[in-house]
């Protein structure tokens, strides 16, 4: 089967983001950008499915600026076979991305789409579920284990209080949680090989998708800072303070 893996270009998880002085957003100029960490887990899972002989071809897709080619190259270096860039410079909300991906699914015909459960920039955690809805497919979100079983996929999901297992008919959507796997580092030979793999570029208009945002950002601000408190010298002092000063125990 063919597997589609969408990947997003985001501010690297190690970067301490700064809110712009004019409150219009966060500073993204001259900031290190990387593939969304949950998307790396999704790519890794697709590559493992290919290594097991379950998947035949892996297509990585990114919706974003021209520079998102870098993230597609990372996916190709990890083991994806080819890339598609849906190039757009403005804001793309999850609903718009889901519509773009639906159009790509229509062209490519994958049996499985694996996405990260959440992007670490807008923290929406929505694109996979929205794509499943638009396609009329089943969804296995927040996956910590994925196994193909005939014409279905068995997904173990991270839920509040433990794990839940569902069987989802193929074609299906899976979103990757942290414990699904540990993504590999691309080796140098694979990075070199990835340079020769094809990346096709399309525009939202080519796919007939209106990506106009539904949300307008009125302002972005820093949350209230917490003040550092006091140091205590001993456990006895700590318990005394908690009992008599903070009165929380």
């Amino acid at each position: 089967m063919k597997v589609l893996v969408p990947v997003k270009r985001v501010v690297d998880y190690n970067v301490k983001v700064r809110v712009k002085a004019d409150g219009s957003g966060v500073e993204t100029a001259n900031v290190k950008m990387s593939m969304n960490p949950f998307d790396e887990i999704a790519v890794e899972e697709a590559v493992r499915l290919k290594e097991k002989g379950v998947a035949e071809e892996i297509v990585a897709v990114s919706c974003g600026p021209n520079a998102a080619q870098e993230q597609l190259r990372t996916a190709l270096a990890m083991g994806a076979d080819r890339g598609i860039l849906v190039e757009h410079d403005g804001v793309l909300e999850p609903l718009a991305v889901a519509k773009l991906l639906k159009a790509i699914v229509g062209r490519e015909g994958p049996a499985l789409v694996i996405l990260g459960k959440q992007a670490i920039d807008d923290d929406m955690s929505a694109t996979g579920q929205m794509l499943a809805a638009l396609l009329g497919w089943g969804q296995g979100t927040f996956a910590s284990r994925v196994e193909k079983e005939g014409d279905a996929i068995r997904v173990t999901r991270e839920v509040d209080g433990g794990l839940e297992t569902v069987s989802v008919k193929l074609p299906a959507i899976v979103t990757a949680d942290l414990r699904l796997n540990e993504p590999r580092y691309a080796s140098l030979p694979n990075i070199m090989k990835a340079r020769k793999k094809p990346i096709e570029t399309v525009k939202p208009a080519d796919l007939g998708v209106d990506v106009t945002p539904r949300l307008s950002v009125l302002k972005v601000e820093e949350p209230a800072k917490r003040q550092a408190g006091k140091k205590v010298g001993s456990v006895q002092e700590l318990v005394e303070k908690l009992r008599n000063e903070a009165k929380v125990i």
Partner: protein
Amino acid sequence: MAVLVLADHKDGALTQPTRSTVAAARKLGEVHVLVAGEGAGAAAAAAARLPGVAKVLTGSEAPALAEPLAAQLVALAPGYSHLLAPASAAGRNVMPRAAALLDVQVLSDVCGVVDADTFIRPIYAGNALATVKSADAKKVLTVRATSFDPVPAEGGNATVEAAPAAADPGLSSFVGAEIVKSERPELTAARIVISGGRAMGSAENFAIIEKVADRLGAAVGASRAAVDAGYAANDMQVGQTGKIVAPELYIAVGISGAIQHLAGMKDSKVIVAINKDEEAPIFQVADYGLMADLFKAVPELEAELAK
């Protein structure tokens, strides 16, 4: 127009985040609650007693799957201006699906209601707060429970009726669940939380934290580093990629205080940090910091609390 809240419930009881979501919903209009899934009957009776709830709708008692539940929400949607659910695993699974079916951009993890169209939500792991206005005719949101004081459990007297049945698209089936049984309170609803980090060193060492937790009636959490190291289960994870908690007292043991962890607990009322590294960033947010070896300090804490 009324607003609809999709309830989270467990063993026939509503979760505290559901009561916080009702509190957020009350700012938007008359509140109706949809209760579906195993044990929905008992939970519906509890929902009817929440102050401010005018009507409770009961859905199927079958294990809640995203696809039929989203179909049910879409069938009910014409009667509502807003659809809300707690930003729990269940809410985050179904609400974006329902939103897409309604051609609406979902608003995840809402932590403030400005008006019927305008909401505040955290981005970049809570390092920034965005105020966003939705142009969609109908709003679909998940609610960050720790940002809204829950409504009391008693005081209301709503009518309960069966929701019109919606067709199950039959796309997925429930296989099973492994839910950890614990006598301790739920992490997101606990008054006190004590969490361990990578410095715990092993899963077995979490026992010293559990003893303190039992002494205080606290829930036990963990940092992502501790979860990644295999010392604690993923559903114990506090942080950007885990649970968001805001208890009255949060005790961080052997946790350095990575941004991703702070995002999950910095709204706690009182924070205690126990760490032997003086430079650990956790001390910058802690109300009380104890620089000490946790393997000495934690058993001492348990003994002191026993006095």
